[in-house]
C-alpha cells in the first residue's frame, strides 16, 4: 500500500510539472501565432453588413477580453488564474468563460474517445489472439493484413470513407451534429437513440483506425507468450484449451496497456480531424474554431485539458499495470 502511495505521489508531482511545462509552452506558442483576432472580427462584421463605424465600436469591446500588458505580465497573470482554475474569457463568444466553452465540447469528445477505445480494444485483442493462434492459416494471414491495412489508414481518411458509405451511398446515419434537435432531450428512448446514431460513425472511425495496432500488438504478444514455460506446464497439467487461452491472454495483455495509454493521447489529438469531418461538436471543433478566431483563452484551455487527459490516462494505465502485473506491484521482486 505504501509503495502504491509513493508511486501515486511521484506520478502527481511529475504530472503537475508536465502540466506547468505544457501550459508555459502553449502560452507562448499561441501568442507567437500570426493573426489578429480584432481585425478578423472587424472584417467579419463589415462583411455582414455592419457599417465600418459600428464594426469598429463593436470590436472595441473585444479589447476588453484580450490579454494586455507585457508578455511576462500576461504569463504570470495566466498562471495565477490557472491556479484558481480560471482560464479567462473567450473572445469568440465574448465574455463567456473559456473553461465553459471547452468543457461543453469535452464531454462529447470524451464519450467518443471512450467508445472508440473500448470498441477498438475489444476488437483488437480478440482478433489479435485469433490471428496469433491461427497464424499459419489463411484466417491468421487475413487478420494480420487487415490489421496492418487499417493501422495505416489515417483517421480523417477513415472518417471520409465512412461518411461516403453510410451517409451518401447508403444513408442510414445522420450527416452531422450530436443529436437531432427535434427530439425532446432527456432519458428517453428516442433521445438516447439519436445520441447513439449521431455518435456511431465518429466512434467507428476512431475504432477502425485504432484496432489495427491492438490487433498486431496482441498477435505478437500472444505468439511470444505461447513459447513460455508456463504455457507448456499448463498443457502438461491437462488444462482445458479455454483455461490455457485465459492464461495466455492475461499475460499477453500486459504490453497492450502501454499502447492503451498512448492511444488516449492519440485519440484526443485525432478529435480535431474526426469531429471536423462529422461536424461533431466536441473539443476538436472547439479548438478549430478558437484557432480561427485567435481565441487565446479557449485555445490554452483546450490544449491544457487535452494534456491533462493524457497525463491522467497514463497514470491510470500505470496504476492498472500495477494491479494486473504482480512483478510491478512487488517492485520488481521475483514472484515465488
Amino acid at each position, binding site marked *: 500500500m505504501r509503495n502504491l502511495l509513493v508511486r501515486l505521489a511521484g506520478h502527481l508531482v511529475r504530472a503537475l510539472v508536465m502540466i506547468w511545462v505544457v501550459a508555459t509552452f502553449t502560452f507562448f506558442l499561441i501568442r507567437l501565432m500570426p493573426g489578429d*483576432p480584432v481585425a478578423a472580427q472587424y472584417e467579419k462584421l463589415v462583411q455582414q453588413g455592419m457599417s*465600418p463605424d459600428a464594426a469598429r465600436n463593436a470590436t472595441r469591446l473585444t479589447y476588453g477580453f484580450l490579454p494586455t500588458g507585457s508578455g511576462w505580465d500576461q504569463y504570470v497573470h495566466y498562471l495565477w488564474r490557472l491556479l484558481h482554475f480560471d482560464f479567462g474569457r473567450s473572445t469568440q463568444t465574448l465574455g463567456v468563460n473559456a473553461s465553459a466553452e471547452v468543457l461543453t465540447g469535452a464531454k462529447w469528445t470524451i464519450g467518443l474517445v471512450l467508445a472508440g477505445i473500448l470498441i477498438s480494444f475489444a476488437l483488437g485483442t480478440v482478433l489479435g489472439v485469433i490471428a496469433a493462434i491461427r497464424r499459419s492459416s489463411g484466417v491468421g494471414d487475413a487478420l494480420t493484413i487487415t490489421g496492418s491495412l487499417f493501422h495505416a489508414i489515417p483517421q480523417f481518411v477513415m472518417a471520409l470513407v465512412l461518411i461516403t458509405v453510410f451517409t451518401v451511398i447508403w444513408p442510414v446515419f445522420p450527416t*452531422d*451534429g450530436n443529436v437531432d434537435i*427535434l427530439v425532446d432531450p432527456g432519458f428517453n428512448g*428516442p433521445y438516447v437513440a439519436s445520441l*447513439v446514431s449521431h455518435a456511431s460513425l465518429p466512434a467507428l472511425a476512431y475504432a477502425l483506425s485504432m484496432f489495427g495496432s491492438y490487433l498486431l500488438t496482441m498477435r505478437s504478444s500472444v505468439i511470444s507468450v505461447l513459447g513460455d514455460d508456463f504455457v507448456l506446464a499448463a498443457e502438461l497439467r491437462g488444462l482445458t484449451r479455454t483455461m490455457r487461452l485465459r492464461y495466455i491472454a492475461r499475460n499477453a495483455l500486459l504490453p497492450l496497456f502501454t499502447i492503451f495509454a498512448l492511444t488516449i493521447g492519440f485519440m484526443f489529438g485525432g478529435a480535431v480531424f474526426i469531429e471536423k469531418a462529422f461536424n461533431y461538436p466536441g473539443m476538436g471543433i472547439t479548438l478549430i474554431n478558437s484557432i480561427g478566431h485567435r481565441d487565446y483563452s479557449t485555445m490554452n484551455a483546450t490544449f491544457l485539458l487535452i494534456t491533462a487527459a493524457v497525463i491522467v490516462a497514463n497514470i491510470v494505465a500505470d496504476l492498472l499495470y500495477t494491479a494486473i502485473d504482480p512483478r510491478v506491484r512487488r517492485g520488481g521482486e521475483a514472484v515465488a
Partner: protein
Amino acid sequence: MRRTAVAATALALCATLAATSCSSSSSSSKGGGTFTAILTQIDSKAPINPYNQSTNSFRGYNAMMLGWSKNTATDPNKFYPAIAKSWELSPDGTKLTVHIQPNAKWSDGKPVTGDDLKLSAAVAYAEGGSAFAAIPGTAGGTVDVKVIDDKTVEFDQNATKPLNTWFANVMTMYVLPAHVWSAQVPSDIWDTIHTALTGSAADAKTAQDTITALGKKLIGWGPDKDVSAGPFTLTRVTTSEALLTKNKNFYDADKIAPSQVVIKNYQDNSTIVNLLLKGEIDGSVYVAVSQSQLDKILAVKGNQVVSGASPVQASLVFNESKKPFDNVHVRRGLAYLIDRAQVTKVGESSSGKASPYPAGLTAAQIQGWGVSTSGLNAYSVDTAKAATEFQQAGLKQAGGKWTLPDGKPFTVPIQTTSDFNDWTSGASNVAAQLQAAGVDAKVTASSDYATYLADLAAGKFTVSWWLTALGPSAYNIYQRLYGAANGWTLGTGGGVAHSAAGQSGNWMGEAESADVSGLGTVNPGELTNQLSQVPPDQQKQIVAKLAAFTNDQVPAIAMWDYVNQNFVNTNRFTGFPPNDADVLRQPQGVWMQLGYIKAKAK
C-alpha cells in the same frame, strides 16, 4: 446466465439500430411545419444576446430591430417595418419619431412599449452602437431618447454635427425586453449617459468608463429563457443546431407559416453543400460553391436558387507604398493585361459576375447611382495600351519580359489566403495571364484569413485581395478604399485626418490627393467623408466623382461582383422571394415577417 446476457445484448443492439433508423428517417420527413435554415455559427454556450458576436439570438427570428433595411444601392435609409410600424424623420434629419407596432408583444405576453426602446437604446450605448456613442460631440450621435407614450418614442441626433447615416443606425437598433434586461442595467443609466455626453471633462470621462464597464458586463450576459418579440423564440440549442418555436404573440403571427425553425450550425461550406445535396435545407444564406457543385445541388428535387445583387466585390488592391506600384501607369498597365471575365470564370464561376469597371462600385451600384459609364474606362484587355502605360512608368521590355527601369525583373507578388478557394484560383489565373504577357507574377497564400488580415494591415503585401463596394450606403462603399486602410480617419466630431503610408493602419499607401483630368485635384477621403453628411442628390455627384477618380487612379482592380445566391427548397415550403428582391439581403426570418414562405399544400 451467459446466454441471457448475450440475448440481452443482442436485443439492445437491435433496439438501438431500430431506433437509429427511426431517428434517421424522422429527420428526413420533418414535413411542412419545420423550416430548416443555415444562418450563422452556433455556440450553445453563447448568451441570448444579439450584441454578442456568437449569439443564440438570431436576427429576424428571435432578435428584432426597429426596421429591416432594404439595402438598396442608392438609399440606405429605406426600411421595412419591424418593431417600428411607422416613423417620421424631421426634414433636417435630426429627429426621428418611431411608432411601435400596436399589437407588438413579447413572447411572455407583455406588450412592447416605449420603455423597452429606451432601455434598448441604453444597452446600445453600452455596446457601442454607431448611433449611440457616449462621447460628447460625436457626429451622427444620438443625444436623447424620449418616451412620448407607450407606443411612441423620439430619438434626437446631435444637431450640430448631423450625419445622414444616423437614421439607418437608429433603425437597426436591437429591441430588448426591458422587464428582462433592466435588472442588469443600473437604474440611473440615463443620468450616466447624459453626464458622458454633456458633463464636465472629468465627469464625462468617469461616466464613459462606467458605460464601457457596463458594456463588457452585458456582452456576456443573456437571459436563461428567451423572451422575444420576433416571430420565434429559442426553445433549445445544441452545439450544432438551434430549435426555435413560433411565437404566438408575434404581431404578424398569421404570416408565419413554419411552426418551428431549425437553424443548423454554419461550420464550413462542405458541410452545407452536403446538407443541400440531401435536400434537407429549406433556406440557406450565401454559400460559395463551384459550378459542378451548383449543378449537383440544383439536381436535387426541390432545390432552387434565388439570387440578387450583392453589395460586395472582390478586388486586387495595390500597396502603393511599394514601388513601382505607386506609379499609376503601372497599375493601369496591369489592369489592361488582366481579362477579368476569365478570372471570374476560374475564381467565382457560379456566384460572381465580372466587374464591368474598376470604379469601386458593383455594376448594380453604378446603375443605381446613375454613374455615367461613358466616362469610365472598362480597361478591356489591350496589350498595346498596357505597353504604353508601362513605358510611361519607365518599364522596359526585353525578350518578351518586362523589367524595371534599373533592369531588374518587374515582379507582381499576389497574396491570397488558403481559406478562400475563389481568391486562390482567381489569383493563379491572374498570375498566369500576367506571365503570358511578360510580367513575372507569383502567388503566395497565407495559412488563414486571420493571418492574412494581420499581415495585410501590417503592410506586408504588395498586391492582395480586398472586398470592396461593401454597401449599401455610399459612405460605407468608399470607406473601403478611402477610409482607415488608405489613411483617412474620421474623427468623432466629424472631419477627416490623413496618415502617411504605413502609419495608423494605412496599408494601401495612396497619396492624400491626386490630379485627375477633368476633375482637378481630388482628395477622395474628404469626399468620402462628405458622403455621410450630404443629402442623396449631392451624394450622387460625389459618388460620380469618386467613381471617376477610382477609375482613373486604379487603387484596386475590381475582378468580380458577388451574386447573393440563396439556396431554397420547395418540397416543404413555397412562396420564396423572387430573384433580385431586396429582401434577399435579409435572413429568411425577415422574409417570413414580410409574408414570404408559405407551407406547401399537401
